[in-house]
């Protein structure tokens, strides 16, 4: 039986760990709220720009922008958003698994993939596999900025424009609710044409200078806003997952402490019993 002192130090150490996990849980909870607000804040821009694209593609039916053109798929690109830090349960692993399944299916079809990795966890994971990483960025932080993402996005959109890749996927975690996050693989390029019915009123803009010239800038901004939104959403997922993971850790530590306390009490009682037995034994011998 472990001595009383040993168990006491063990209890103290587990209590410290519990304090840390509890603090992390609360920090994650408060960060989650703020990130959710940020997620909401990015919505109006994305919706507006989508309508503008609808109008633009309606305005010049003869002009086909490469972003709107469907091509035969020979090579694809992935923008993969993962977290920078761990301790967030199976959030990243679930996502990587779904990507690997996708990659395997593509490989069987003879389609190769280029990866663009946002986040340190994805980099650590995909580095070990034999994948083709063409761009990477990490430590965008809890308050991501569009400026930090532009480089990575530009690499992929350039590749698409040059015809190196024929389809661009975007992978991030979708925030369903605090308890549930779903990895989602969405097509970023070619841009899905907006349904005509979605344009509420049928009228057209005056374009300055011309629709064809405007469409380029608008589409680039659209892609960026989509990726930005995904990154912010992924941060929200990270915080939610971390909160849940840390809550579980705190509870486990509590159970562990209870068990240790029981052990400690038993050890203490055993020691006392033994001492009494020795005294009684000694007295009997006299």
């Amino acid at each position, binding site marked *: *039986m*472990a001595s009383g002192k040993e168990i006491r130090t*063990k209890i103290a150490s*587990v209590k410290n760990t519990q304090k840390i996990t509890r603090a992390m849980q609360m920090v994650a909870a408060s960060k989650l709220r703020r990130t959710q607000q*940020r997620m909401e*804040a*990015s919505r*109006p*821009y*994305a919706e*507006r*720009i989508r309508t*503008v694209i609808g*109008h*633009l593609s309606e305005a010049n039916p003869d002009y086909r922008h490469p972003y709107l053109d469907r091509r035969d798929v020979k090579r694809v690109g992935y923008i993969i958003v993962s977290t*920078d*830090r*761990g*301790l967030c349960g199976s959030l990243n692993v679930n996502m990587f698994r779904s990507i690997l399944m996708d990659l395997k299916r593509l490989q069987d079809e003879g389609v190769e993939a280029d990866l*663009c*990795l946002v986040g*340190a*966890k994805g*980099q*650590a994971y995909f*580095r070990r596999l034999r994948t083709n*990483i*063409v*761009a*990477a*960025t*990490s*430590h965008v932080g809890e308050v991501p*900025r*569009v*400026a930090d993402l*532009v*480089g*990575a996005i*530009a*690499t992929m959109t*350039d590749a698409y424009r040059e015809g190196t890749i024929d389809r661009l996927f975007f992978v991030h975690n979708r925030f369903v609710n605090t308890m549930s996050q779903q990895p989602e693989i969405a097509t970023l390029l070619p841009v899905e044409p907006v349904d005509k019915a979605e344009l509420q009123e049928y009228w057209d*803009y*005056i*374009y*300055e*200078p011309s*629709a064809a010239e*405007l469409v380029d*800038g*608008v589409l680039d*901004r659209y892609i*960026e*806003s989509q990726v*930005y*939104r995904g990154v912010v959403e992924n941060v929200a997922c990270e915080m939610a997952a971390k909160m849940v993971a840390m809550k579980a850790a705190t509870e486990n530590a509590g159970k*562990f402490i209870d*068990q*240790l306390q029981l*052990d400690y009490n038993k050890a203490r009682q055993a020691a006392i019993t033994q001492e009494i037995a020795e005294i009684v034994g000694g007295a009997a011998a006299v």
Partner: protein
Amino acid sequence: MPIHVDIVSAEGDIFSGEAEWVFAPGRLGELGIAPRHAPLLTELKPGEVRVETSDGEEQFFYVTGGVLEVQPHLVTVLADSAVRGDELDEEAALAAREKAREVLAGRSDEIDLDQAQAELVEAEARYRAAQKLKGKRR
């Protein structure tokens, strides 16, 4: 009849309110927009967006670029949250590619640190589990 003005960027709302006049730096020159302007779509140059409210007050917003959308009673400025430019984009793209090479070469310190931390946490957890089992067996 005032116009409703929304200035939004990808990172959040910047301004929303009623105005009599909106001035914006369009790509082909400065634009002044009064209520019942024809629908218009243009790109913005870096510069100042000026909003004149009905009580004669003026508000200024600096934009690094963006897209301006005008409807008869609605003006939307989709402001860029980052300074753009082909050269800057090119630079950023190069940085991202460089980073990818680092990742592949495994030179990046940050990742190794993260990796080490993860391994440490794992090792600690394993140690604890072992301790727990030991305690139970006795």
